[in-house]
């Protein structure tokens, strides 16, 4: 039973990793940019929930909505201000990467200035009796976290596969130049992708700050990095891969701690990354496409 509980602990955290990893994946798939500011979008989402619920006293649904809107706006704003010109001018990838790191540090410092570096406590958002299956107990937060993220990922899969904008996203991802020739507004598609990824991160932040109710300006750093590892592990560019990667990373973390090796947790996570990159550079579910020259 203890083992089953540890797996569920992993699935719960893994759901959040997966939601964040999706954002990395979509953006990387479309513009080939590893958006390191993505982890900090979660932090922005967390503070929006804090402002809405604790400072303004709004109900949960308003807070969630506000958080989604602000995160989507922030994601798009960063794309417009920081990345757009670099993308248009065909700047080298390293410039984009460094700009992304800069955006990440900027967000952390901005929020440290606004809210101070000491942690802010979040109200408990998801309450209710836990589910008991035999001696296995699953808390309400865990259930909601897993359910919400699975639903969102299924919904995202539908959007990408079945809608016009999804088709445009896939086309831009495949070959942006050809997509333009086919009459697809790639600029709008890229903006949409940033917005959608950030909105998912906002939902992730609500779930995350509900499970771990103390937020700091730096909370996005390690979380973003782990989610990035999950994205690479699952196969960057593959949406089911992001899910799989998130679950695998979090479950292995949870089991490492359960065996009393908490010191090795990060070593295990990044060790997995190294092994996967050596054995299967495209990730578990990634397509092994050659870089176009």
């Amino acid at each position, binding site marked *: 039973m203890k083992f089953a509980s540890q797996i569920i602990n992993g699935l719960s955290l893994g759901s959040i990793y997966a939601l964040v990893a999706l954002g990395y994946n979509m953006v990387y798939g479309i513009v080939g940019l590893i958006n390191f500011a993505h982890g900090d979008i979660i932090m922005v989402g967390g503070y929006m929930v804090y402002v809405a619920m604790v400072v303004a006293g709004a109900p949960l649904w308003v807070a969630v909505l506000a958080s989604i809107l602000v995160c989507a706006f922030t994601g798009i704003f960063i794309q417009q201000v920081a990345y757009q010109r670099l993308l248009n001018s065909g700047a080298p990838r390293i410039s984009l990467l460094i700009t992304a790191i800069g955006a990440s540090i900027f967000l952390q410092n901005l929020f440290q200035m606004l809210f101070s570096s000491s942690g802010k406590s979040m109200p408990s958002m998801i309450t209710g009796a836990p589910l008991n299956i035999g001696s296995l107990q699953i808390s309400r937060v865990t259930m909601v976290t897993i359910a919400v993220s699975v639903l969102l990922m299924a919904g995202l899969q539908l959007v990408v596969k079945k809608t016009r904008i999804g088709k445009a996203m896939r086309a831009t991802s495949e070959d942006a130049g050809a997509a333009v020739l086919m009459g697809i507004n790639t600029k709008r598609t890229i903006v949409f992708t940033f917005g959608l990824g950030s909105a998912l991160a906002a939902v992730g932040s609500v779930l995350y700050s509900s*499970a771990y109710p103390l937020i700091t300006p730096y909370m996005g750093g390690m979380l973003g990095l782990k989610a990035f590892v999950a994205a690479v592990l699952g196969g960057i560019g593959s949406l089911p891969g992001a899910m799989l990667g998130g679950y695998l990373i979090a479950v292995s973390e949870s089991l490492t701690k359960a065996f009393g090796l908490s010191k090795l947790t990060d070593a295990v996570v990044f060790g997995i990354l190294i092994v996967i990159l050596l054995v299967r550079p495209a990730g578990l579910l990634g397509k092994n496409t050659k870089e176009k020259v």
Partner: protein
Amino acid sequence: MKKFVCCALAAAMAMSMVACGGASSSAPAASAAGSSAAATGDTVKVGVLGPLTGAVSVYGINVTNGAKMAAEDVNAKGGVLGKQVEVVLYDEKGDETEAVNAYNKMVDNDKVVALIGDVTTTPTLAVAQASQETGLPMITASASAQAVTETGENVFRACFIDPYQGELMAKYAAEKLGAKTYAVLYDDTNDYSLGVAEVFQETADAAGMTAASVQTYQSGTPDFKSQLTEIKAANPDVLFIPVYYEDLALITVQAKEMGISAKLMGADGWDGVLGKLDDSNKDAVNGAYYCSQYAPDSTDPAVQDFIKRYTDANGEAPNMFALLGYDAMRMMLQSIEDACSTDSAAIVEAMTKLEYEGLTGNMTFDENRNPVKSAVILTFENGTTKFVENFG
């Protein structure tokens, strides 16, 4: 009971005064000594050193005010060795060089017989080093680093050191809570957390308790569910969590969510945890126990009397440091009285044998010149901190 002990102590002091009077050839009788000393203007000079200005002045001001009050109290009852106590106060501005300079002035110009100070760890270490030359008896009210009293045989302290809290809480779990099994969750990258946890385990094992689960984490992670799952499965009577309040807030909320029934226990790093818990989560720490050196709502009448007198005299309420400063001065003066002399070696000798009942607990000194004393046990009730008892 307390009153009785006080009376007994006073009687013992009076007796020792008589003894001193008999031993010394110059002063004929203890009762007469007071007036004759005052007549000649002879005083016992005790140095008090602390940061009265600068970033850490809040500690220094409290410690020195407390120490001055202690000297006044003793003077009101006749002083020590039949003489009045004269406080020689210096401001070291939180700087170790200033502290050593002030120390040298006290010894060379003012001829103090003992020192109450310093206040923070770094200057205290510097002064303790300087004091090795003459072996001047000194007691710091508040410097908690282990190395301070290791400097020399003449250096004592009034506050307890961090690991001592582990010992105290293990005893509390065994004796007062009747715990048979325990679990520990601590941050093994943090000296404070590690030190307190190790001493807790040693003491708990020695007291006959069994370790159900020992879990560690590294600061920076908000996720403790894996460790708490292990602890829950082990089902201990108490769960000891010697960590700082931000991590603690996250741990207790997750423990509540997982339905862990063990009594939660901690050390003074818990101060401030209520500020990191939203109102909807404050019940996560209900009924948990932790220790500290001082509780403003202590039911001890001596503490309440001190708080009132300090507030009247200084216009603001004292913090823990004021009580420690008071105790440090009282301990030093009592040792001088016990030693029947102002000779450094004799005072140090008397310090090691001292039994003192103070505001921050009853204390004696161990072989490392750290106090063995009682602590204040606190608990949480409906989102507020509450004094339970003195223990130890």
